[in-house]
């Protein structure tokens, strides 16, 4: 059953004198529980497609549905609210709130959802255990390594119980050991919670772990293969 459906997506950036056609008619369906990578050379439109499927950007033409909801039909406020309750994000740089502790960073997103304190506390503890940083709960992000920060980012993404997490180059700044640990963690979360993970990456280590690889070139899907492992 598909969780995301992109139909005829076009996206052009006009920030420079020469328009950049980032996506040229992309059709894509992502099924529930997939562990998928969008790959391709720099500038092929990976991040643009990821942003559109995550509701961070809207296409110039075409439609994007998440769980049957047409994101183009939502107001700006509704779209923010939709992201809060349905999508988790892991960015290239962990993008944690530097003034909050690890625990507070994870709890913060649940506070945006107005979830009760007891529920938040329980979930924070569960996630800290799950991502293996229970001992660092009161650390600030600046006191953690890059790998540990990305673990917190994964915990934060999972905190809202999203069905779908997008991760843009999550391993770009990590060494091999940290990359392996992070991918193990996300694969485990994918298995444990059934959460759909979609990565935009050009990291071979991520591609090696993905169960489906969609290849983009010049804004078009040129390959889509499912890997049985």
């Amino acid at each position, binding site marked *: 059953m598909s969780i995301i459906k992109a139909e005829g997506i076009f996206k052009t950036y006009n920030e420079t004198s020469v328009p950049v056609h980032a996506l040229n008619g992309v059709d894509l369906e992502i099924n529930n529980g997939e562990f998928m990578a969008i790959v391709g050379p720099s500038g092929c439109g990976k*991040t643009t497609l990821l*942003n559109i499927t*995550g509701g*961070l*950007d809207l296409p110039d033409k075409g439609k994007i549905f998440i769980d049957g909801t047409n994101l183009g039909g939502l107001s*700006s*406020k509704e779209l*923010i*609210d939709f*992201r*809060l*309750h349905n999508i988790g*994000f892991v*960015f*290239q*740089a962990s*993008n944690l*709130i*530097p*003034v*909050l502790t690890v625990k507070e960073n994870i709890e*913060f*997103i649940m*506070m*945006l*959802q*107005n979830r009760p304190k007891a529920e938040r506390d329980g979930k924070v503890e569960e996630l800290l255990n799950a991502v293996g940083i229970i001992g660092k709960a009161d650390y600030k992000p600046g006191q953690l390594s890059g790998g540990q920060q990305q673990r917190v980012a994964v915990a*934060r993404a999972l905190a*809202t119980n999203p069905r779908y997490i997008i991760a*843009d180059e999550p391993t770009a700044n990590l060494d091999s050991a940290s990359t392996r640990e992070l991918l193990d963690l996300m694969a485990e979360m994918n298995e444990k919670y059934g959460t759909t993970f979609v990565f935009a990456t050009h990291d071979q280590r991520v591609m090696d772990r993905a169960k489906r690889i969609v290849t983009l070139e010049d804004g078009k899907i040129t390959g889509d293969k499912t890997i049985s492992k």
Partner: protein
Amino acid sequence: MKNTTISIAWRNIRRNKARSLVIMISVAIGVAGAVLADGFMEGMSEQRIRSAISNEISNIQIHNPQFLLNKETEFTIAGADGIVEKIKSLQEVKGISRRFITNGMASSAEAGAMVSILGISPDTESQVSSLSQHIVGGKYLAEAQRLPVFIGEKLSKKLNLNIDDKLILTFTNRDGEITSGAFNITGIYKTTNDNFDKTEVFVKNDELKRLAGYPSGTVNEIAILLKSNELTSSTVRKLDGLLAPQIKEGKLIVQSWKELAPVVKSMSDTMNFFSMLFLMVILIALAFAIINTMLMSIMERTREFGMLTALGMNKRKIFEMILSETLFLSIFGAAAGLILSALGIQYFSAAGFDLSSVAGGMNSIGYDSVIYPDVKFTFYATAMAMVIIIAVLSSLWPAAKAMRLRPAEAIRENE
């Protein structure tokens, strides 16, 4: 959630301590400057009003309306004794003095000057005037001495006269003839108003009336000192009621110091206006400093705001966070400024701020050269309220900038 937004805002303030401190110090200095400036202007103004009331005009005066038009001695207050009795019945009244006034020439062997000659009874006059406390030479009008005169230091210098010298006062008597008397200078006073010191001379009531040919009960002016200046307007209304028949007939007029010395009142109003204007100018300048700081802060945190929006923080919460940061910077700065200025005001209100180097200029317009600043609580409250308003307004632009960020672009900023 609101507490978390505020908590993040507070932690963001501490994130760049140097920058936050600089802007808070700027706000503190600006607010302290405005409050101190108001304190000095208010102090000057209050001192001038107090001086005018206690030395020159008292709180309220009653005249024959004709006397105010041309200062002719013949325009007297009919039934002054009965009026004084009615005034005494008011509990707001601290002292009453009956004056007989004529204009004339004061001269010595070397020079002359136009003066107002006030015939007073020293006992009752000292109930309404504190001139007897401003003696710089000799003593107040002595009852026992014949033809004593009490003059200002400026006049004594102009006429080159000193204690025990003779002062010739020349004026018109009741029959329209020029008459004069040789008075003995028994005391010299000095107020903060050079003009008053140059033109007002005090003699004994009965002696002046005898020389001018008026009966002993003649009165041109009834001066009333109240227990508090705050009571002035209400007491004027009461007197208007008590003396309504004479006022209706046009025989009497009751006036407060504000009507008698409109310049003093308008100077006070002008100073209040300039205090507020000064505060406004400082706060507007500070607003741009705050806007600049917040814009810098937001530009540095573009990715962070993009991430917050991406995660699901709505625009209202982002606005709350930026508003909270701006309010923290402004309120803490303003509070420090208010405390600083309150301490300064407390010190100078006791020790005085000495402007002796410009005493000549200050005294020539009636102001004391030692200023005791005074700030009313309402000004502190107004300053704080205006800082809050300015902070809210200053947060709008940076907040709008943060709220307009598109998460997809903001997150990749500086990558």
